């Protein structure tokens, strides 16, 4: 079957014989090693990018396990100690009738991190395969992942505020649990993972497609 007039070919900087700067977008001849506009280091494709993506992603996933299983908040009221995990806290809020807040906590600390693991993993796997995806789904996914990752930090802030405020000694005291630390690390690691991803690799599939 003949494709009379296909979509206009996508011209990548690499095929044009140029190197694009990921920070400011200026293109240079391949001889340059630092960007003349912003001073960032230039490489056409970062060869070690995927390695770093996987390494940070693994670290993030490992740190996520204790973040889910260990207590996030320890509440002591009149000598009685109660420990709450992240999910436990969200369920507690739900039972009290604060559905909306419970939903925010659940989305920020369970839904977003897990879908981020999957999304980064998918992106890192899919740039290796030569499967061509029509449209710009992967570019969009990359931007969403980069934008949304930091919002998971919300639960760590909640713990910090609560435990700095509720300090009445014996009457009522809230202390942060170990999960707060590992959760913060998990979010930071996955943010680094998303940042190490070289988005230009997504475009390579289009390059192969045309030739």
């Amino acid at each position, binding site marked *: 079957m003949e494709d009379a007039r296909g979509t206009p070919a996508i011209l990548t900087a690499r095929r044009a014989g140029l190197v694009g700067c990921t*920070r*400011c*977008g*200026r293109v240079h001849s391949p001889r340059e090693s630092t960007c*003349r*506009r*912003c*001073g*960032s280091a230039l490489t056409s494709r970062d060869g070690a990018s995927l390695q770093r993506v996987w390494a940070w992603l693994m670290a993030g996933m490992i740190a996520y396990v204790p973040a889910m299983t260990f207590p996030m908040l320890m509440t002591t009221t009149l000598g009685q100690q109660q420990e709450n995990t992240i999910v436990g806290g969200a369920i507690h*809020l739900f039972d*009290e009738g*604060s559905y909306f*807040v419970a939903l*925010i*906590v659940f989305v920020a600390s369970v839904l977003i991190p897990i879908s981020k693991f999957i999304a980064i993993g998918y992106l890192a796997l899919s740039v290796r395969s030569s499967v061509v995806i029509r449209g710009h789904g992967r570019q969009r996914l990359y931007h969403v992942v*980069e934008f949304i*990752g*930091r*919002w998971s*930090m*919300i*639960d*760590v*802030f*909640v*713990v*910090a*505020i*609560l*435990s*700095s*405020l*509720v*300090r*009445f000694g014996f*009457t*009522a005291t809230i*202390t*942060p649990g*170990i999960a*707060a*630390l590992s959760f*913060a690390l998990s979010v*930071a690691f996955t*943010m680094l993972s998303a*940042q190490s991803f070289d988005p230009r690799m997504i475009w390579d599939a289009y390059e192969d497609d045309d030739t």
Partner: protein
Amino acid sequence: MTQIVMLAATAAILMVAAVFFPFLEIHASGLSRWSSLLGVVAAFSEGWMLPLTFGLGAMILVLPLARLAALIYTLAPMALGHRPAPHAALAFRWAEAMRPWAMVEIFILGAAISLVKISALADVALGPAFWALAVLVVVTVLKDTLMCRMTVWKTLEERRPS
């Protein structure tokens, strides 16, 4: 560009106010307590959670302020029609790199959730720092939507002394 510089300066002033005024205050059965932003940062300073204190301090205090300072340094001379200051490109590159790690807007949402959580146990009063931060978030969002990074980079390059 002038607007961005003004908004950045506003945000910086609000940030300083937010650090020193009380953030939240609670009253419960005759006891009351208030906490400032610094107190929140210090929440993890006991035992071996200490590293998290530095992380928290960076995310809600140091990096937002440093980012504002870098933006003002980059943009203010150009807004006044001068050449960019020395190392302005470096400053702007840092500002861009800091962007995902400055999390004040996430912090304010966290504060809102904490309010819901505590209000079941005690009366909570919002301090001036809370309002300062709330306005700061609006100003920051406004500033970031006004600012086009590509334009800033282009202007930096065009106005650079050769």
